[in-house]
């Protein structure tokens, strides 16, 4: 690993650590409705929304009611997004006159964005109108992020409160997170991104006359505009020379900001954050990475603050940071080593003062190895799924890194809210295991962990591996699944495994060679995304409700501290053990065997 690779990591983590306390404290104050100035400034709008919607913010809900409100709100969001896509041809802000995506594609996209996955089986440039992007996709970017955060807040309340039946008001929680956290910071970030060159306009696509003409072969079309084939069914090709380059336009920055800040990850363009109009400079890249990590990291402080012991939050953050550095080194080291088969052709892959070297297939020159692998680790360790390089073209072990990040359940910082609540579930499982080892009743933050919490925690953790492995197994067994594979051999298996891992964890990144815009993948992955999102959420809310109702037991000599190094190691061990035991066999069939083949000559 180069000094620059370590330096960039240090810069990212350094700035993040500086922001954790102020942002974490701010989010705690927002969720408690503390009398701070932003809440006074926005109070008028907040109260207006409550009045319009018939919401009484003071009326708190039990966990079941909270869960039903959440599910109803998310389901309606998916329905609205489906309708917007299917009707986009008849709606305004569609200067390219794009027609509706197919029903299975629109179904997949609606679920994908409502569940914070942002898996994209479509090519945005030629599929989505500006209205579908901003009023459909971007709105779900905000609301799915807010949904994740309020579930984490509900779980924190469950730990912080005692002997009550309620965990908060879902409508007020969603409104506050959106108005005071997501919207203002996304707004500032959007303008900062425009300052770097991210576009923000409503014009139709531009037609440029290039410096040099380009000559290429394409399939001819007949008078009706359909692709032409000869009598044997082979496509008729023709040679075309053109100097025209179409430049896509659109309101990108406003969507880009919340795409990262809400760990959503759905690109305005097909190439996502590798596209120069989404991520033009090294500074925009750093801003986007910071946007991805800030809420998940800061929520650990919010947690510590709300349970009345900030050390608890720092311990969770420490475990996340240690895991993150390990995962980043795995990706960075392997990508910097490069591809021996390409080096053998007389290609220089050495890192010098003039080039990043390494494996540059599917990477941008401005990002090189350091910024590409850091982004790849961050986007899969959280639930973001935006990419600034193409993971499908990573070296076998370099590509296994983002895959394994997701398989750990996205708890290394994790998605906004989802990362914290999933990590707290691991903490509950960790103290349970420790309790078994030392022969005491397990407890976490003064709450006894009993059979109901363990059942719900087990569901929350095990649903993901179950649907990921089952889905991948079905896909490799049927023709419709095998048909999507782009690369031969073990890598093709990795493509399918990656797709279901990404969907089951609501990540959204891809080994993008897979042709996923087929009814089979659209529907299968849609179902996996839905289950992977809402089953754990309901289980977590159940834990929250159950913990809130418990008495708090006082700390004694026998209480295991949950803020020291022992606990941090226990937590890391639990995460690695569950992830490794579940997925190592599958990884052995994909990236590991591919690695052995790559270096076997």
């Amino acid at each position, binding site marked *: 690993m180069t000094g620059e690779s370590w330096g960039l990591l240090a810069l990212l983590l350094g700035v993040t650590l500086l922001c954790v306390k102020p942002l974490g404290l701010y989010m705690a104050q927002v969720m408690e409705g503390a009398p701070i100035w932003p809440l006074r400034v926005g109070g008028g709008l907040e109260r207006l929304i409550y009045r319009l919607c018939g919401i009484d913010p003071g009326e708190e809900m039990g966990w079941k009611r909270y869960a039903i409100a959440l599910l109803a709100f998310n389901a309606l969001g998916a329905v609205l997004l489906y309708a917007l896509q299917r009707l986009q041809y008849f709606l305004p802000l569609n200067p390219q006159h794009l027609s509706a995506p197919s029903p299975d594609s629109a179904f997949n996209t609606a679920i994908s964005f409502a569940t914070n996955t942002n898996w994209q089986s479509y090519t945005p440039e030629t599929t989505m109108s500006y209205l579908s992007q901003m009023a459909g996709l971007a709105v779900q970017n905000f609301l799915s992020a807010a949904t994740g955060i309020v579930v984490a807040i509900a779980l924190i309340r469950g730990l912080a409160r005692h002997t009550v039946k309620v965990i908060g008001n879902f409508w007020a929680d969603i409104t506050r997170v959106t108005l005071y956290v997501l919207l203002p910071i996304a707004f500032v970030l959007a303008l900062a991104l425009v300052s770097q060159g991210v576009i*923000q306009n409503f014009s139709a696509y531009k037609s*440029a006359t290039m410096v040099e003409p380009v000559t*290429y072969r394409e399939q001819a079309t007949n008078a009706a505009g359909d692709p032409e084939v000869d009598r044997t069914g082979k496509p008729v090709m023709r040679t075309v020379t053109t100097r025209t380059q179409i430049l896509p336009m659109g309101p990108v920055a406003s969507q880009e900001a919340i795409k990262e800040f809400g760990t959503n990850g759905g690109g305005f363009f097909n190439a996502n954050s590798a596209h120069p109009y989404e991520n*033009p400079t090294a500074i925009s890249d750093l801003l986007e990475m910071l946007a991805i990590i800030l809420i998940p990291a800061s929520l650990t402080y919010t947690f510590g603050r709300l349970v009345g012991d900030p050390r608890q939050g720092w311990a969770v953050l420490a475990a996340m940071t240690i895991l993150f550095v390990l995962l980043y080194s795995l990706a960075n080291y392997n990508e910097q080593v490069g591809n021996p088969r390409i080096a053998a052709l007389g290609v220089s892959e050495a890192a010098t003062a003039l080039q990043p070297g390494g494996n540059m297939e599917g990477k941008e020159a401005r990002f090189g190895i350091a910024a590409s692998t850091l982004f790849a680790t961050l986007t899969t360790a959280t639930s973001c799924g935006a990419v600034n390089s193409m993971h499908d073209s990573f070296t076998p072990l370099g590509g296994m890194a983002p895959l394994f990040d997701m398989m750990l359940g996205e708890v290394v910082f994790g998605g906004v809210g989802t990362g914290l609540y999933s990590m707290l579930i691991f903490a509950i499982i960790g103290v349970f295991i420790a309790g078994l080892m030392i022969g005491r009743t397990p407890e976490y933050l003064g709450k006894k962990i009993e059979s109901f919490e363990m059942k719900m925690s087990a569901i929350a953790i095990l649903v993901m591996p179950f649907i990921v492995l089952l889905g991948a197994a079905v896909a490799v067994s049927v023709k419709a699944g095998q048909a999507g594979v782009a690369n031969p051999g073990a890598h093709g298996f990795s493509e399918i495994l990656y797709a279901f891992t990404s969907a089951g964890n609501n990540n959204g990144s891809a080994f993008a060679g897979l042709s996923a815009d087929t009814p089979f993948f659209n529907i299968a992955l849609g179902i996996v995304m839905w289950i992977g999102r809402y089953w754990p959420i309901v289980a977590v809310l159940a834990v929250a409700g159950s913990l809130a109702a418990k008495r708090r037991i006082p700390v004694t000599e026998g209480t295991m501290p949950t803020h020291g190094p022992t606990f941090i190691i226990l937590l890391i061990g639990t995460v690695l053990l569950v992830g490794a035991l579940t997925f190592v066999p599958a990884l052995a069939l994909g990236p590991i065997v591919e690695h052995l083949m790559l270096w076997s000559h």
Partner: protein
Amino acid sequence: MKTILRPAITLLLVMTVLLGIVYPFLVTGIARAIFPARAAGSLIIENGRLVGSRLIGQPFRDPKDFWSRPSATRPQPYNGLDSTGSNLGPLNPALTDAVKAHIAALRAADPADTAPVPVDLVTASASGLDPDISLAAAFYQAGRVARARGLPPARVRALIAAHAKGRLLGVLGEPRINVLELNLALDELR
């Protein structure tokens, strides 16, 4: 059920207006006022004609121009409507074939040069629209470009140095150069 459905529907509609309409239009208005050129796409206009964008790469194949990185967009390279990488896996024979073809084209344009080829010059970018090449890839091509244009090599190298971008704070960004801007500057030289 009504106590759930009414707030669910109305809150979704209110949020759609606020986050989906007001927010993007507000950002657009302010962006247009303070960063008009960047919000519009960093377009390059010469003699009243749109030549391209300084952020979006273009294909170059003429020996007198600096070549961009390979692009996997279809059907033609650097197609602005199909931003994509090749997505070829590291063991895929199609990847080594593509790299071989790019090396052969570079060698054919400059048979005297037998130095190892910088890796970014023969591998497809992530977006297929990469506007940059590494400085190594620029200096690798400097001799060919100077000969084809009848310029002293030192002058071409000086031009590269003048347009080069480095690492901010030592860590942000890679040593690189914008190919379209470099070629346009070359045309200005004579």
